[in-house]
Protein backbone atom coordinates (compact mmCIF):
# COMPACT_ATOMS: atom_id res chain seq x y z
CA UNK A 1 0.00 0.00 0.00
CA UNK A 2 1.47 3.35 -1.01
CA UNK A 3 1.88 6.07 1.57
CA UNK A 4 0.22 9.45 1.81
CA UNK A 5 2.14 12.29 0.19
CA UNK A 6 2.80 15.67 1.82
CA UNK A 7 -0.30 17.25 0.26
CA UNK A 8 -2.46 14.44 1.62
CA UNK A 9 -0.97 14.86 5.09
CA UNK A 10 -1.46 18.65 5.01
CA UNK A 11 -5.08 18.11 4.01
CA UNK A 12 -5.48 15.55 6.75
CA UNK A 13 -4.08 17.99 9.35
CA UNK A 14 -6.51 20.73 8.29
CA UNK A 15 -9.37 18.23 8.36
CA UNK A 16 -8.55 17.07 11.88
CA UNK A 17 -8.28 20.71 13.04
CA UNK A 18 -11.72 21.37 11.53
CA UNK A 19 -13.20 18.35 13.31
CA UNK A 20 -11.66 19.16 16.68
CA UNK A 21 -11.78 22.99 16.72
CA UNK A 22 -15.30 23.50 18.09
CA UNK A 23 -14.80 20.84 20.75
CA UNK A 24 -11.43 22.23 21.85
CA UNK A 25 -12.80 25.78 21.88
CA UNK A 26 -15.63 24.84 24.25
CA UNK A 27 -13.20 23.26 26.70
CA UNK A 28 -10.78 26.18 26.32
CA UNK A 29 -13.36 28.88 27.09
CA UNK A 30 -14.57 26.85 30.07
CA UNK A 31 -11.31 27.64 31.87
CA UNK A 32 -11.67 31.41 31.60
CA UNK A 33 -11.19 33.40 34.81
CA UNK A 34 -13.34 36.24 33.44
CA UNK A 35 -17.06 36.77 33.93
CA UNK A 36 -17.60 36.82 30.16
CA UNK A 37 -16.67 34.65 27.17
CA UNK A 38 -12.96 34.85 26.48
CA UNK A 39 -10.06 32.65 25.51
CA UNK A 40 -7.73 32.39 28.51
CA UNK A 41 -4.04 32.49 27.61
CA UNK A 42 -2.09 33.12 30.80
CA UNK A 43 -4.74 32.96 33.53
CA UNK A 44 -6.65 29.72 33.82
CA UNK A 45 -9.37 29.20 36.35
CA UNK A 46 -11.80 26.55 37.49
CA UNK A 47 -14.33 29.13 38.75
CA UNK A 48 -16.93 28.21 36.12
CA UNK A 49 -16.68 24.53 37.03
CA UNK A 50 -17.30 25.40 40.67
CA UNK A 51 -20.13 27.66 39.50
CA UNK A 52 -22.02 24.62 38.15
CA UNK A 53 -22.65 23.55 41.75
CA UNK A 54 -24.58 26.77 42.33
CA UNK A 55 -27.03 25.87 39.55
CA UNK A 56 -28.97 22.90 40.94
CA UNK A 57 -30.94 22.61 37.69
CA UNK A 58 -27.78 21.53 35.84
CA UNK A 59 -26.76 19.12 38.58
CA UNK A 60 -30.19 17.51 38.81
CA UNK A 61 -30.43 17.40 35.01
CA UNK A 62 -27.13 15.52 34.93
CA UNK A 63 -28.44 12.85 37.33
CA UNK A 64 -31.68 12.80 35.38
CA UNK A 65 -29.77 12.10 32.13
CA UNK A 66 -27.62 9.48 33.79
CA UNK A 67 -30.58 7.60 35.27
CA UNK A 68 -32.65 7.89 32.13
CA UNK A 69 -29.80 6.70 29.93
CA UNK A 70 -28.93 3.75 32.16
CA UNK A 71 -32.52 2.59 32.59
CA UNK A 72 -33.75 3.05 29.02
CA UNK A 73 -30.61 1.42 27.56
CA UNK A 74 -30.96 -1.56 29.89
CA UNK A 75 -34.62 -1.96 28.92
CA UNK A 76 -33.77 -1.53 25.23
CA UNK A 77 -31.21 -4.33 25.53
CA UNK A 78 -33.86 -6.39 27.34
CA UNK A 79 -36.25 -5.96 24.43
CA UNK A 80 -33.44 -6.56 21.91
CA UNK A 81 -32.22 -9.93 23.19
CA UNK A 82 -35.28 -12.05 22.34
CA UNK A 83 -35.86 -10.09 19.13
CA UNK A 84 -32.23 -10.55 18.08
CA UNK A 85 -32.34 -14.28 18.84
CA UNK A 86 -35.46 -14.61 16.69
CA UNK A 87 -34.04 -12.56 13.81
CA UNK A 88 -30.58 -14.10 13.89
CA UNK A 89 -31.50 -17.76 14.13
CA UNK A 90 -34.97 -18.25 12.73
CA UNK A 91 -36.28 -17.91 9.21
CA UNK A 92 -39.85 -16.76 9.56
CA UNK A 93 -42.42 -14.73 7.68
CA UNK A 94 -42.09 -10.99 8.27
CA UNK A 95 -38.52 -11.27 9.55
CA UNK A 96 -37.26 -8.40 7.38
CA UNK A 97 -40.33 -6.33 8.23
CA UNK A 98 -39.75 -6.76 11.97
CA UNK A 99 -36.08 -5.80 11.60
CA UNK A 100 -37.03 -2.72 9.58
CA UNK A 101 -39.62 -1.75 12.19
CA UNK A 102 -37.16 -2.00 15.08
CA UNK A 103 -34.57 -0.04 13.10
CA UNK A 104 -37.12 2.57 11.99
CA UNK A 105 -36.30 5.16 14.70
CA UNK A 106 -33.07 5.73 12.75
CA UNK A 107 -35.08 6.56 9.63
CA UNK A 108 -37.73 8.78 11.16
CA UNK A 109 -36.52 12.33 11.83
CA UNK A 110 -36.19 12.81 15.60
CA UNK A 111 -38.16 16.02 15.33
CA UNK A 112 -41.13 14.02 14.00
CA UNK A 113 -40.71 11.41 16.75
CA UNK A 114 -40.63 14.18 19.36
CA UNK A 115 -43.86 15.65 18.06
CA UNK A 116 -45.51 12.24 17.85
CA UNK A 117 -44.47 11.38 21.43
CA UNK A 118 -45.66 14.77 22.72
CA UNK A 119 -49.05 14.28 21.11
CA UNK A 120 -49.36 10.69 22.34
CA UNK A 121 -48.15 11.28 25.90
CA UNK A 122 -50.41 14.31 26.30
CA UNK A 123 -53.39 12.15 25.31
CA UNK A 124 -52.57 9.41 27.81
CA UNK A 125 -51.43 11.77 30.59
CA UNK A 126 -47.71 10.93 30.53
CA UNK A 127 -46.53 14.27 29.18
CA UNK A 128 -43.46 15.54 31.03
CA UNK A 129 -43.25 12.39 33.15
CA UNK A 130 -40.18 10.25 33.69
CA UNK A 131 -42.11 7.17 32.52
CA UNK A 132 -42.81 8.90 29.23
CA UNK A 133 -39.14 9.81 28.81
CA UNK A 134 -38.07 6.23 29.50
CA UNK A 135 -40.56 4.79 26.97
CA UNK A 136 -39.48 7.29 24.31
CA UNK A 137 -35.78 6.71 24.94
CA UNK A 138 -36.14 2.91 24.81
CA UNK A 139 -37.59 3.25 21.32
CA UNK A 140 -34.99 5.75 20.14
CA UNK A 141 -31.94 3.78 21.35
CA UNK A 142 -33.38 0.39 20.37
CA UNK A 143 -31.68 0.35 16.92
CA UNK A 144 -28.24 0.76 18.54
CA UNK A 145 -28.91 -1.91 21.15
CA UNK A 146 -30.41 -4.26 18.57
CA UNK A 147 -27.58 -3.82 16.08
CA UNK A 148 -24.91 -4.98 18.52
CA UNK A 149 -27.12 -7.66 20.06
CA UNK A 150 -27.80 -8.99 16.56
CA UNK A 151 -24.11 -8.96 15.74
CA UNK A 152 -23.27 -11.10 18.77
CA UNK A 153 -26.26 -13.41 18.27
CA UNK A 154 -25.33 -13.95 14.62
CA UNK A 155 -21.70 -14.59 15.51
CA UNK A 156 -22.66 -17.33 17.94
CA UNK A 157 -21.22 -20.77 17.26
CA UNK A 158 -24.23 -23.07 17.40
CA UNK A 159 -22.14 -26.18 17.77
CA UNK A 160 -21.35 -25.15 21.36
CA UNK A 161 -25.06 -25.20 22.15
CA UNK A 162 -25.47 -28.52 20.34
CA UNK A 163 -22.66 -29.90 22.48
CA UNK A 164 -24.46 -28.74 25.63
CA UNK A 165 -27.69 -30.38 24.47
CA UNK A 166 -25.96 -33.66 23.62
CA UNK A 167 -24.40 -33.60 27.09
CA UNK A 168 -27.92 -33.57 28.51
CA UNK A 169 -28.54 -29.88 29.23
CA UNK A 170 -32.14 -28.72 29.08
CA UNK A 171 -33.17 -25.92 26.74
CA UNK A 172 -33.36 -23.47 29.68
CA UNK A 173 -29.92 -24.48 30.98
CA UNK A 174 -28.43 -24.01 27.51
CA UNK A 175 -29.90 -20.52 27.32
CA UNK A 176 -28.78 -19.58 30.81
CA UNK A 177 -25.36 -21.23 30.95
CA UNK A 178 -24.21 -21.19 27.32
CA UNK A 179 -26.07 -18.76 25.05
CA UNK A 180 -26.42 -15.73 27.33
CA UNK A 181 -22.81 -15.75 28.63
CA UNK A 182 -21.64 -15.85 25.01
CA UNK A 183 -23.64 -12.79 24.01
CA UNK A 184 -22.92 -10.73 27.15
CA UNK A 185 -19.97 -8.75 25.63
CA UNK A 186 -22.19 -7.75 22.72
CA UNK A 187 -24.97 -6.79 25.12
CA UNK A 188 -22.63 -4.65 27.20
CA UNK A 189 -21.42 -2.79 24.12
CA UNK A 190 -24.99 -2.41 22.89
CA UNK A 191 -25.95 -0.98 26.26
CA UNK A 192 -23.02 1.45 26.20
CA UNK A 193 -23.75 2.69 22.69
CA UNK A 194 -27.43 3.05 23.56
CA UNK A 195 -26.50 4.89 26.75
CA UNK A 196 -24.32 7.44 24.93
CA UNK A 197 -27.09 8.08 22.41
CA UNK A 198 -29.69 8.48 25.14
CA UNK A 199 -27.38 10.71 27.17
CA UNK A 200 -26.82 13.06 24.21
CA UNK A 201 -30.32 13.06 22.74
CA UNK A 202 -31.87 16.52 22.61
CA UNK A 203 -34.15 16.94 19.56
CA UNK A 204 -36.79 14.44 20.58
CA UNK A 205 -36.42 14.94 24.34
CA UNK A 206 -36.92 18.70 24.20
CA UNK A 207 -40.55 18.04 23.23
CA UNK A 208 -41.46 15.62 26.00
CA UNK A 209 -39.31 16.67 28.98
CA UNK A 210 -41.19 18.64 31.60
CA UNK A 211 -39.65 21.31 33.84
CA UNK A 212 -38.92 18.66 36.50
CA UNK A 213 -37.64 16.00 34.11
CA UNK A 214 -35.42 17.99 31.72
CA UNK A 215 -32.24 16.15 30.76
CA UNK A 216 -28.83 17.81 30.65
CA UNK A 217 -28.71 18.41 26.86
CA UNK A 218 -32.22 19.87 27.01
CA UNK A 219 -31.23 22.22 29.85
CA UNK A 220 -28.10 23.22 27.94
CA UNK A 221 -30.07 23.81 24.76
CA UNK A 222 -32.71 25.96 26.47
CA UNK A 223 -29.97 27.88 28.31
CA UNK A 224 -28.01 28.57 25.09
CA UNK A 225 -31.15 29.81 23.37
CA UNK A 226 -31.32 32.63 25.92
CA UNK A 227 -27.65 33.48 26.35
CA UNK A 228 -24.22 32.00 25.91
CA UNK A 229 -21.92 32.50 28.90
CA UNK A 230 -18.93 30.66 30.39
CA UNK A 231 -21.21 28.57 32.62
CA UNK A 232 -22.66 26.64 29.71
CA UNK A 233 -19.16 26.04 28.32
CA UNK A 234 -18.02 24.45 31.58
CA UNK A 235 -21.15 22.27 31.65
CA UNK A 236 -20.45 21.28 28.03
CA UNK A 237 -16.83 20.55 28.88
CA UNK A 238 -18.03 18.11 31.55
CA UNK A 239 -20.38 16.45 29.05
CA UNK A 240 -17.57 16.19 26.49
CA UNK A 241 -15.25 14.69 29.11
CA UNK A 242 -17.88 12.11 30.08
CA UNK A 243 -18.48 11.11 26.46
CA UNK A 244 -14.77 10.93 25.61
CA UNK A 245 -14.20 8.75 28.67
CA UNK A 246 -17.01 6.42 27.61
CA UNK A 247 -15.71 6.40 24.04
CA UNK A 248 -12.19 5.41 25.04
CA UNK A 249 -13.56 2.66 27.30
CA UNK A 250 -15.75 1.40 24.47
CA UNK A 251 -12.87 1.52 22.02
CA UNK A 252 -10.70 -0.55 24.37
CA UNK A 253 -13.48 -3.03 25.11
CA UNK A 254 -15.03 -3.46 21.70
CA UNK A 255 -13.19 -1.41 19.08
CA UNK A 256 -14.69 1.76 17.69
CA UNK A 257 -14.26 0.63 14.09
CA UNK A 258 -16.31 -2.46 14.77
CA UNK A 259 -18.82 -0.50 16.83
CA UNK A 260 -19.54 2.21 14.27
CA UNK A 261 -19.09 0.34 11.03
CA UNK A 262 -20.70 -2.80 12.38
CA UNK A 263 -19.95 -6.12 10.83
CA UNK A 264 -21.40 -9.55 10.65
CA UNK A 265 -24.80 -8.21 11.62
CA UNK A 266 -27.88 -8.84 9.55
CA UNK A 267 -27.26 -6.15 6.93
CA UNK A 268 -27.69 -6.84 3.27
Amino acid sequence: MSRNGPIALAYHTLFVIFMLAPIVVVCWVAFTPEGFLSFPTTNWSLRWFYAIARYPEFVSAFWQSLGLGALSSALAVGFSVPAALAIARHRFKGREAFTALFMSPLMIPYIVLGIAFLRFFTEIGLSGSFTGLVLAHIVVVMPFALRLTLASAAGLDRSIEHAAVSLGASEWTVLKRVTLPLVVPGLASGWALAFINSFDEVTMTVFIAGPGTATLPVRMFLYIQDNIDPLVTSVSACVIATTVGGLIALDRAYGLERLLVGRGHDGR
Partner: protein
Amino acid sequence: MKATPYLLVLPALVLFAAIVIVPLVMTVALSFHDWGQYKGIEPVFILKNWREVLEDSYYWEVFGRTFRIAALVTVLSAVFGAPEAYILNRMKSPWRGLFLLVILGPLLISVVARTLGWALLFGGNSGLVNKGLMAAGLISAPIPFMFTETGMVVALTHVLMPYMVLSVWAALQRLDPQIENAAVALGAGPLTTLRRIVLPQAMPGILSGAIIVFSLAASAFATPAIIGGRRLKVASTLAYDEFLNTLNWPLGATVAVILLVVLATAVIVANRLVERRYAQVFG
Protein backbone atom coordinates in the same frame (compact mmCIF):
# COMPACT_ATOMS: atom_id res chain seq x y z
CA MET B 1 -41.55 -24.52 17.23
CA LYS B 2 -43.04 -22.34 14.50
CA ALA B 3 -44.42 -19.87 17.00
CA THR B 4 -41.06 -19.40 18.77
CA PRO B 5 -39.69 -16.50 16.66
CA TYR B 6 -43.01 -14.67 16.90
CA LEU B 7 -43.08 -15.07 20.68
CA LEU B 8 -39.52 -13.76 20.83
CA VAL B 9 -40.24 -10.58 18.85
CA LEU B 10 -43.60 -10.05 20.57
CA PRO B 11 -42.42 -7.77 23.44
CA ALA B 12 -40.55 -5.42 21.12
CA LEU B 13 -43.41 -5.55 18.62
CA VAL B 14 -45.98 -4.51 21.23
CA LEU B 15 -43.70 -1.71 22.41
CA PHE B 16 -43.17 -0.37 18.89
CA ALA B 17 -46.83 -0.65 17.94
CA ALA B 18 -47.84 1.31 21.04
CA ILE B 19 -45.01 3.86 21.19
CA VAL B 20 -44.10 4.39 17.52
CA ILE B 21 -46.94 3.47 15.20
CA VAL B 22 -49.86 4.80 17.26
CA PRO B 23 -48.20 8.20 17.94
CA LEU B 24 -47.22 8.59 14.27
CA VAL B 25 -50.77 7.85 13.13
CA MET B 26 -52.06 10.31 15.73
CA THR B 27 -49.68 12.98 14.41
CA VAL B 28 -50.90 12.52 10.85
CA ALA B 29 -54.49 12.77 12.15
CA LEU B 30 -53.55 15.86 14.15
CA SER B 31 -52.49 17.65 10.97
CA PHE B 32 -56.12 17.49 9.81
CA HIS B 33 -57.58 18.89 13.05
CA ASP B 34 -58.75 22.45 13.56
CA TRP B 35 -57.19 24.91 15.98
CA GLY B 36 -58.12 28.31 17.33
CA GLN B 37 -56.50 30.70 19.78
CA TYR B 38 -59.29 30.21 22.32
CA LYS B 39 -60.95 26.94 21.43
CA GLY B 40 -57.71 24.92 21.25
CA ILE B 41 -57.56 21.72 19.19
CA GLU B 42 -60.82 20.54 17.64
CA PRO B 43 -60.81 16.91 16.45
CA VAL B 44 -62.47 17.44 13.09
CA PHE B 45 -61.28 16.55 9.58
CA ILE B 46 -60.36 19.67 7.63
CA LEU B 47 -57.63 20.61 5.17
CA LYS B 48 -57.10 24.07 6.68
CA ASN B 49 -53.53 23.48 7.89
CA TRP B 50 -52.42 21.77 4.70
CA ARG B 51 -53.91 24.58 2.64
CA GLU B 52 -52.22 27.17 4.82
CA VAL B 53 -48.79 25.56 4.56
CA LEU B 54 -49.06 24.90 0.83
CA GLU B 55 -50.45 28.32 -0.09
CA ASP B 56 -48.44 30.66 2.15
CA SER B 57 -45.11 31.64 0.57
CA TYR B 58 -43.56 31.86 4.06
CA TYR B 59 -43.68 28.08 4.44
CA TRP B 60 -42.29 27.57 0.95
CA GLU B 61 -39.42 29.85 1.90
CA VAL B 62 -38.73 27.85 5.08
CA PHE B 63 -38.85 24.48 3.28
CA GLY B 64 -36.73 25.94 0.46
CA ARG B 65 -34.11 27.06 2.99
CA THR B 66 -34.23 23.66 4.74
CA PHE B 67 -33.52 21.67 1.59
CA ARG B 68 -31.04 24.23 0.21
CA ILE B 69 -29.00 23.96 3.41
CA ALA B 70 -29.29 20.15 3.38
CA ALA B 71 -28.11 19.99 -0.25
CA LEU B 72 -25.13 22.27 0.42
CA VAL B 73 -24.14 20.32 3.53
CA THR B 74 -24.35 17.07 1.54
CA VAL B 75 -22.14 18.36 -1.27
CA LEU B 76 -19.58 19.88 1.12
CA SER B 77 -19.33 16.78 3.26
CA ALA B 78 -18.87 14.60 0.16
CA VAL B 79 -16.24 16.89 -1.39
CA PHE B 80 -14.22 17.17 1.82
CA GLY B 81 -15.09 13.89 3.55
CA ALA B 82 -14.38 11.44 0.71
CA PRO B 83 -10.69 12.47 0.27
CA GLU B 84 -10.21 12.25 4.03
CA ALA B 85 -11.66 8.74 4.09
CA TYR B 86 -9.23 7.78 1.32
CA ILE B 87 -6.29 9.27 3.23
CA LEU B 88 -7.41 7.47 6.41
CA ASN B 89 -7.63 4.21 4.52
CA ARG B 90 -4.00 4.56 3.38
CA MET B 91 -2.69 5.20 6.88
CA LYS B 92 -0.68 2.66 8.83
CA SER B 93 -2.08 0.75 11.75
CA PRO B 94 -1.73 2.82 14.96
CA TRP B 95 -2.42 6.17 13.24
CA ARG B 96 -5.41 4.88 11.36
CA GLY B 97 -7.19 3.75 14.52
CA LEU B 98 -6.31 6.95 16.35
CA PHE B 99 -7.55 9.30 13.65
CA LEU B 100 -10.62 7.22 13.02
CA LEU B 101 -11.42 7.75 16.71
CA VAL B 102 -10.70 11.48 16.40
CA ILE B 103 -12.91 11.93 13.34
CA LEU B 104 -15.75 9.56 14.21
CA GLY B 105 -15.72 10.29 17.94
CA PRO B 106 -17.48 13.67 17.62
CA LEU B 107 -20.48 11.72 16.34
CA LEU B 108 -21.11 10.62 19.90
CA ILE B 109 -20.44 13.99 21.54
CA SER B 110 -23.56 16.00 22.31
CA VAL B 111 -24.65 18.01 19.29
CA VAL B 112 -25.47 20.90 21.65
CA ALA B 113 -21.85 21.05 22.83
CA ARG B 114 -20.52 20.85 19.27
CA THR B 115 -22.82 23.61 18.07
CA LEU B 116 -21.90 25.73 21.08
CA GLY B 117 -18.31 25.40 19.90
CA TRP B 118 -19.24 26.83 16.51
CA ALA B 119 -21.21 29.63 18.12
CA LEU B 120 -18.06 30.52 20.09
CA LEU B 121 -15.86 30.29 16.97
CA PHE B 122 -18.24 32.44 14.92
CA GLY B 123 -18.91 34.87 17.80
CA GLY B 124 -19.90 38.03 15.95
CA ASN B 125 -17.58 39.86 13.58
CA SER B 126 -14.50 39.38 15.73
CA GLY B 127 -14.89 35.59 16.02
CA LEU B 128 -11.88 33.32 15.70
CA VAL B 129 -12.95 31.98 12.31
CA ASN B 130 -13.10 35.45 10.80
CA LYS B 131 -9.82 36.46 12.41
CA GLY B 132 -8.17 33.34 11.03
CA LEU B 133 -9.58 33.77 7.54
CA MET B 134 -8.56 37.44 7.46
CA ALA B 135 -5.08 36.70 8.77
CA ALA B 136 -4.69 34.08 6.05
CA GLY B 137 -5.72 36.71 3.52
CA LEU B 138 -8.66 34.64 2.30
CA ILE B 139 -11.23 37.35 3.01
CA SER B 140 -10.96 41.10 3.44
CA ALA B 141 -14.08 41.76 5.50
CA PRO B 142 -15.59 39.52 8.19
CA ILE B 143 -18.28 37.13 6.99
CA PRO B 144 -21.40 37.07 9.16
CA PHE B 145 -21.77 33.48 10.40
CA MET B 146 -24.12 33.75 13.37
CA PHE B 147 -27.81 33.92 12.46
CA THR B 148 -27.06 33.17 8.79
CA GLU B 149 -27.43 30.22 6.45
CA THR B 150 -23.66 30.22 5.93
CA GLY B 151 -23.11 29.55 9.62
CA MET B 152 -25.76 26.82 9.66
CA VAL B 153 -24.12 25.12 6.66
CA VAL B 154 -20.64 25.19 8.22
CA ALA B 155 -21.81 23.91 11.61
CA LEU B 156 -24.06 21.21 10.12
CA THR B 157 -21.27 20.05 7.79
CA HIS B 158 -19.11 19.56 10.87
CA VAL B 159 -21.88 17.79 12.79
CA LEU B 160 -22.67 15.37 9.95
CA MET B 161 -19.21 14.92 8.41
CA PRO B 162 -18.44 11.72 10.41
CA TYR B 163 -21.34 9.92 8.68
CA MET B 164 -19.83 10.67 5.27
CA VAL B 165 -16.30 9.64 6.27
CA LEU B 166 -17.69 6.47 7.83
CA SER B 167 -19.69 5.57 4.76
CA VAL B 168 -16.87 6.18 2.26
CA TRP B 169 -14.37 4.46 4.52
CA ALA B 170 -16.59 1.37 4.68
CA ALA B 171 -16.75 1.32 0.87
CA LEU B 172 -12.97 1.70 0.58
CA GLN B 173 -12.49 -1.29 2.88
CA ARG B 174 -13.66 -3.48 0.00
CA LEU B 175 -11.15 -1.94 -2.37
CA ASP B 176 -8.29 -4.25 -3.24
CA PRO B 177 -5.03 -2.23 -3.08
CA GLN B 178 -3.58 -4.57 -5.71
CA ILE B 179 -5.89 -3.02 -8.31
CA GLU B 180 -4.37 0.39 -7.60
CA ASN B 181 -0.89 -1.08 -7.84
CA ALA B 182 -1.83 -2.79 -11.11
CA ALA B 183 -3.02 0.54 -12.54
CA VAL B 184 0.25 2.19 -11.56
CA ALA B 185 2.24 -0.72 -12.98
CA LEU B 186 0.37 -0.37 -16.26
CA GLY B 187 1.54 3.24 -16.45
CA ALA B 188 -1.41 5.19 -15.02
CA GLY B 189 -0.50 8.43 -13.23
CA PRO B 190 -1.72 9.04 -9.67
CA LEU B 191 -4.60 11.26 -10.87
CA THR B 192 -5.75 8.73 -13.43
CA THR B 193 -5.63 5.98 -10.81
CA LEU B 194 -7.66 8.12 -8.46
CA ARG B 195 -10.24 9.04 -11.06
CA ARG B 196 -10.57 5.71 -12.90
CA ILE B 197 -9.90 3.17 -10.13
CA VAL B 198 -10.54 4.61 -6.67
CA LEU B 199 -13.41 7.02 -7.30
CA PRO B 200 -15.72 4.52 -9.07
CA GLN B 201 -15.26 2.08 -6.20
CA ALA B 202 -15.79 4.75 -3.55
CA MET B 203 -18.91 6.06 -5.31
CA PRO B 204 -21.43 3.73 -3.63
CA GLY B 205 -20.07 4.85 -0.27
CA ILE B 206 -20.23 8.52 -1.23
CA LEU B 207 -23.81 8.14 -2.45
CA SER B 208 -25.08 6.24 0.57
CA GLY B 209 -23.27 8.72 2.82
CA ALA B 210 -24.95 11.53 0.89
CA ILE B 211 -28.38 10.02 1.52
CA ILE B 212 -27.72 9.81 5.27
CA VAL B 213 -26.23 13.31 5.49
CA PHE B 214 -29.03 14.88 3.44
CA SER B 215 -31.83 13.40 5.50
CA LEU B 216 -30.14 14.24 8.82
CA ALA B 217 -29.31 17.79 7.64
CA ALA B 218 -32.86 18.44 6.49
CA SER B 219 -34.30 17.31 9.82
CA ALA B 220 -31.56 18.72 12.10
CA PHE B 221 -32.90 20.74 14.97
CA ALA B 222 -30.43 21.86 17.66
CA THR B 223 -27.78 23.24 15.30
CA PRO B 224 -30.10 25.41 13.16
CA ALA B 225 -31.92 26.53 16.30
CA ILE B 226 -28.73 27.74 18.01
CA ILE B 227 -26.89 29.12 14.96
CA GLY B 228 -30.02 30.46 13.24
CA GLY B 229 -31.43 32.17 16.33
CA ARG B 230 -35.09 32.87 16.72
CA ARG B 231 -35.75 34.38 13.32
CA LEU B 232 -33.97 32.30 10.68
CA LYS B 233 -36.22 29.22 10.60
CA VAL B 234 -35.88 25.80 9.03
CA ALA B 235 -38.68 23.23 8.93
CA SER B 236 -37.79 21.56 12.23
CA THR B 237 -37.42 24.79 14.21
CA LEU B 238 -40.65 26.05 12.67
CA ALA B 239 -42.48 22.92 13.84
CA TYR B 240 -40.92 23.32 17.29
CA ASP B 241 -42.16 26.92 17.47
CA GLU B 242 -45.68 25.95 16.52
CA PHE B 243 -45.73 23.26 19.18
CA LEU B 244 -44.07 24.96 22.13
CA ASN B 245 -44.56 28.71 21.55
CA THR B 246 -47.60 29.37 19.36
CA LEU B 247 -49.25 26.16 20.58
CA ASN B 248 -50.84 25.63 17.16
CA TRP B 249 -50.20 21.88 17.25
CA PRO B 250 -52.15 20.95 14.11
CA LEU B 251 -50.09 23.38 12.02
CA GLY B 252 -46.84 22.12 13.56
CA ALA B 253 -47.92 18.53 12.89
CA THR B 254 -48.57 19.44 9.24
CA VAL B 255 -45.04 20.84 8.87
CA ALA B 256 -43.60 17.71 10.52
CA VAL B 257 -45.63 15.33 8.33
CA ILE B 258 -44.55 17.16 5.17
CA LEU B 259 -40.90 16.93 6.27
CA LEU B 260 -41.32 13.21 7.00
CA VAL B 261 -43.03 12.45 3.68
CA VAL B 262 -40.59 14.46 1.55
CA LEU B 263 -37.56 12.94 3.27
CA ALA B 264 -38.90 9.38 3.19
CA THR B 265 -39.66 9.73 -0.52
CA ALA B 266 -36.25 11.24 -1.26
CA VAL B 267 -34.43 8.53 0.69
CA ILE B 268 -36.37 5.65 -0.87
CA VAL B 269 -35.97 6.98 -4.43
CA ALA B 270 -32.26 7.69 -3.90
CA ASN B 271 -31.69 4.25 -2.40
CA ARG B 272 -33.41 2.60 -5.37
CA LEU B 273 -31.31 4.57 -7.85
CA VAL B 274 -28.06 3.82 -6.03
CA GLU B 275 -28.88 0.15 -5.72
CA ARG B 276 -29.85 -0.18 -9.37
CA ARG B 277 -26.77 1.69 -10.54
CA TYR B 278 -24.44 -0.30 -8.33
CA ALA B 279 -26.23 -3.64 -8.34
CA GLN B 280 -23.01 -5.47 -9.20
CA VAL B 281 -21.09 -3.83 -6.36
CA PHE B 282 -23.72 -4.56 -3.74
CA GLY B 283 -24.61 -8.00 -5.07
